[in-house]
């Protein structure tokens, strides 16, 4: 039985796809058989972040419409053994997704995988609702700014009402908060919301905090999930996040402003 986790946010550009790729990679590195599905039909990105855009033949919509088998569409990751990617279609729109089709895909994956990560599109419309509908857990990605927090709040409300678990009256979806692009220096200056304020407003468990980092941008452009860059702060923060997702107790890092010491200033600072 696989655990189905949706990575969602409401607002666009907060780091859903980056986080879905990094967490899926982290789970696979920990030996979990993981599939990551791009639900952003029409605005396909996950394949770029995962660095497999040249190997896409079939996609989620082909599978749902019966034009290809699931095994034909799943792309095996070149770097980690247990990781598979199901890309979205770039030439269709979200209307091509059906609830029955998505259910069938998830049911099939359910037998072979430990984790299924659903990378949700932005917004609260059909694509986002289908991405979350069958989830067991949700990772709500939030940036430390008011509009992102409000949109996340809206999504958490939808998770409690517009999902299969909610409609059946099963145990509710477990909601986790993942704060990305956190810059402790700018928080101290008052440019960004601080961690405690975000936690107070959203009132769900904090799964992880990813510092704003050049490593993330670099990773995206190279098509290598940042989890592989274990010397970077963001890579380590995602590894911590994955450990917590697996039930381990890991102390929070990178949430306080570190003044650069004399040595690191002299040698340019290796923590990037």
């Amino acid at each position, binding site marked *: 039985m696989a655990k189905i986790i949706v990575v969602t946010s409401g607002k666009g550009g907060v780091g859903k796809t980056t986080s879905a790729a990094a967490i899926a990679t982290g789970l696979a590195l920990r030996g979990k058989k993981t599939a990551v599905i791009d639900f952003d039909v029409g605005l396909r990105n996950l394949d770029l972040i995962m660095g497999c855009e040249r190997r896409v033949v079939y996609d989620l919509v082909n599978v749902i419409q019966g034009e290809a088998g699931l095994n034909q569409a799943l792309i095996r990751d070149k770097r980690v053994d247990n990781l598979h990617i199901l890309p979205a279609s770039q030439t269709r729109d979200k209307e091509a997704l059906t609830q029955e089709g998505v259910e069938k895909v998830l049911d099939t994956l359910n037998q072979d995988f430990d984790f299924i990560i659903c990378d949700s599109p932005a917004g609260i419309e059909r694509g986002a609702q289908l991405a979350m509908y069958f989830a067991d857990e949700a990772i709500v990605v939030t940036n430390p700014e008011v509009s992102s927090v*409000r949109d996340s709040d*809206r999504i958490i409300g939808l998770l409690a*009402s*517009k999902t299969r678990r909610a409609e059946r009256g099963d145990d509710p979806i477990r909601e986790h908060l993942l704060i990305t692009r956190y810059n402790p220096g700018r928080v101290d200056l008052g440019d960004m919301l601080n961690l405690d304020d975000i936690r*107070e407003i959203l009132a769900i468990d904090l799964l992880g905090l990813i510092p704003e980092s050049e490593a993330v941008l670099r990773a995206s452009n190279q098509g290598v999930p940042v989890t592989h860059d274990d010397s970077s702060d963001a890579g380590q923060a995602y590894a911590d996040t994955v450990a917590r997702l697996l039930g381990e107790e890991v102390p929070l890092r990178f949430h306080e402003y570190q003044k650069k010491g004399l040595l690191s200033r002299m040698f340019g600072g290796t923590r990037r």
Partner: protein
Amino acid sequence: MSLNVDRDSMAFTFKGGMLPMTVMELTSADPERIREQLASKLSQSPAFFQHTPVVLNVEKLDEPHLALERICAVCRAHKLLPVAVRGGPDPVKQSAWALGLGWFPPQEASRPRALESVADAAPAGDGKPDAPEAVATEAPPGATAGGRIYRGTVRSGQQVTAPEGDLVVVGAVNAGAEVLAAGNVHVYGALRGRALAGIHGDDKAGIFCRELHAELLSVAGNYKRLEDIDPRLLGTTVQVQLFDGQLSIKSLD
């Protein structure tokens, strides 16, 4: 928006409004049977029958001609004020108009649930957050004192309503959320969204909250926006009430 009109010279303004309304769904057209049932209801919950406006829903009746005038008389005798009729064939519409009542087209889908059936399931709000996405759970008539308790965070885009009595929110009301009550609104947490008390016009109603950051406060239609609120009161525990038609916000600290 005609900006040139002098506000003082206007006799009225039209405003759109969504008022909660009791719908009386008729399953019998016999005025005598209606009279009997109303009489027994009146003894059960007299508080409900205080010139309460009702809409007579006749969709379920399959009769071309209704003794509408007699039915209305029975209602008025029991302190219910029929204001409109919903559904029914053309003759019913004509006689509704003749009686000075409004007429609404029938509503096939999503018909309002009968108040009785809600009454059983009603002490809603405890346990599951059952009211996301503008769900107005109707409280039972007569439970005016009880109102409704909602536990948990009311999130952006959600609306929680107590159409009868008070609404108690044990949790925060976030920005973009809306809480409404016929009576008082109590928020045992931060109030960041909109709070409307006395939505039926009760000007004695009030709003009470632990931490004021509200986008909008309204009592019986008199409102203040966040911008109008004294910044010194923000973040404090307050009560909001009407004094001489003015909304007054007082600290409880």
